[in-house]
């Protein structure tokens, strides 16, 4: 089975290590992906705040592009960023459920040589790896298990809320199960797993936003986690890149490596560090990973 890959803007920029490691993991696991040609930004939370029609049509264009490329049958589209994942799903729902919007999309898209058929299913990599590849296969592939590594799995908001499609809304487990299959131990922290990291507020209203990220990191440290694993480029950015600022703001010597789950999984699969973008992190995971290799 071949998947359409919708990377989203962040995976080409601050979330580059996510794309690098994810594609390596997919290769190992036999998940065949092809990047969607001509894709555009999903619109994230900003477009919805400015114009609703624009927001839905902008995201919907990506779905129509995939359908144009694959005119027959159903299409599975992988969206690794939580925001892209939610916005694409929301656009699909709105276009199909709201009569005026749906009719306007059909009309305008067909005049531009595209049709919207509603044949795309949006999938998150966690969903694909757990439910399509399967934990048994993942376990087999992990030749360098993350023995003794304690991971705090942080899911973020938008893959479990408001639509819980592949995981539990209040206590998501897919990432825990994946990393356990990779030999790691995961901490029990139901109350933090899907608590808001602050989103873009970490930059705009930093006193409020960074506090939300800090709460999560502090709890991970209290539970003696060696690393935090994330599944979204914005969560990862907040939980890693603002640590310098948090140290000053909260007068704390906090230092917690925050990685993408795919980097940890790739490491367990024996993929070279360079190929996983591990050297590009601001808080080095070297010590934590070395300890589990020993």
């Amino acid at each position, binding site marked *: 089975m071949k998947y359409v890959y919708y990377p989203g*803007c962040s995976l*080409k*920029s*601050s*979330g*580059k*290590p996510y794309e690098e490691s994810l594609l390596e993991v997919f290769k190992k696991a036999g998940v065949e992906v092809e990047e969607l*040609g*001509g*894709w*555009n*930004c999903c619109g*994230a*939370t*900003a477009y*919805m*705040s*400015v*114009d*609703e*029609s*624009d927001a*839905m*049509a*902008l995201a919907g*264009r990506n779905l129509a592009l995939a359908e144009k490329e694959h005119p027959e049958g159903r299409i599975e589209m992988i969206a690794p960023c939580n925001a892209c994942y939610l916005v694409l799903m929301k656009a699909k729902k*709105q276009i199909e459920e*709201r009569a*005026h919007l749906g*009719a*306007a*999309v059909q*009309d*305008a*898209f067909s005049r*531009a040589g595209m049709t919207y058929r509603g044949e795309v299913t949006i999938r998150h990599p966690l969903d694909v790896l757990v439910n399509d590849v399967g934990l048994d296969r993942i376990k087999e592939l992990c030749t360098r298990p993350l023995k003794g590594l304690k991971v705090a799995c942080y899911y973020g*908001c*938008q893959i479990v*809320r*408001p639509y819980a499609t592949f995981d539990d*809304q209040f206590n998501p487990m897919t990432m825990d199960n994946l990393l356990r299959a990779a030999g790691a131990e995961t901490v029990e922290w139901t109350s933090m797993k899907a*608590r*808001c990291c*602050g*989103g*873009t*507020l970490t*930059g*705009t*209203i*930093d006193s*409020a936003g960074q506090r*939300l990220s800090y709460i999560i990191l502090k709890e991970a440290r209290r539970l003696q986690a060696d690393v935090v694993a994330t599944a979204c480029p914005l969560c990862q950015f907040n939980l890693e*890149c*603002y640590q*310098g*600022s948090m140290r000053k703001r909260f007068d704390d010597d906090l230092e917690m490596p925050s990685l993408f789950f795919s980097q940890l999984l790739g490491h367990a699969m024996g993929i070279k560090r360079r190929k996983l973008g591990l*050297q*590009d992190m*601001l808080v080095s995971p070297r010590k934590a990973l070395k300890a589990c290799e020993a």
Partner: protein
Amino acid sequence: MKSLEIERRIKYESEVNPDFGKEIASMTGGEDLYSCIQCGTCSSTCPVSIYMHYTPRRVIALTRAGFEDEVLTHNTIWLCASCYACTVDCPKEIRITDVMYALKRKAIERGAYPRRFPVPALAKEFYNSVHRSGRSNEIHTVTKTFLKTNPLKLFKNAAMGIKLLLRGRLQIREEKMEGAPAEVRELLDAVRQKRKGLEQEAAKTV
């Protein structure tokens, strides 16, 4: 010292916009505004309500009562980070995050948002960036937002920016989509106009 000047603390009916609630209820996401029972679950589950001028519950009450200025010019709607905690917890299944989006759009449409507040500025810069290139560009969007709202923040975040640049995690050159962004703009214009037309027709027949 506290001012002892006497001020009227309530509004007269003539000072509110009686249609404001209905206006918001007619927008996507606002449909269930009038089924709110004011239980306050949203306010208690919201991770940023402690910073808000009005909690989400109060925003719904104010909206329904026509307090347009209070709702649109205060910080509540812009502090919503779209975590959807309220939406999944609401016992009346009101999509509160989408109510906040509807209010944000109304504030931008009316030019009623607080000017130097960085959240609406970021939303607009993000929108402009995607409009131009079909992609969002982190460094451009953030730089422009801070220049317009609080240039000091550029210096505060400079060290982090440099570290990310050195690791190839920020792109100075504006990322562009493959193909013509102008075609995307035309497509969006066409959808918006067609939808408006359909809605106006429907309004006439009611």
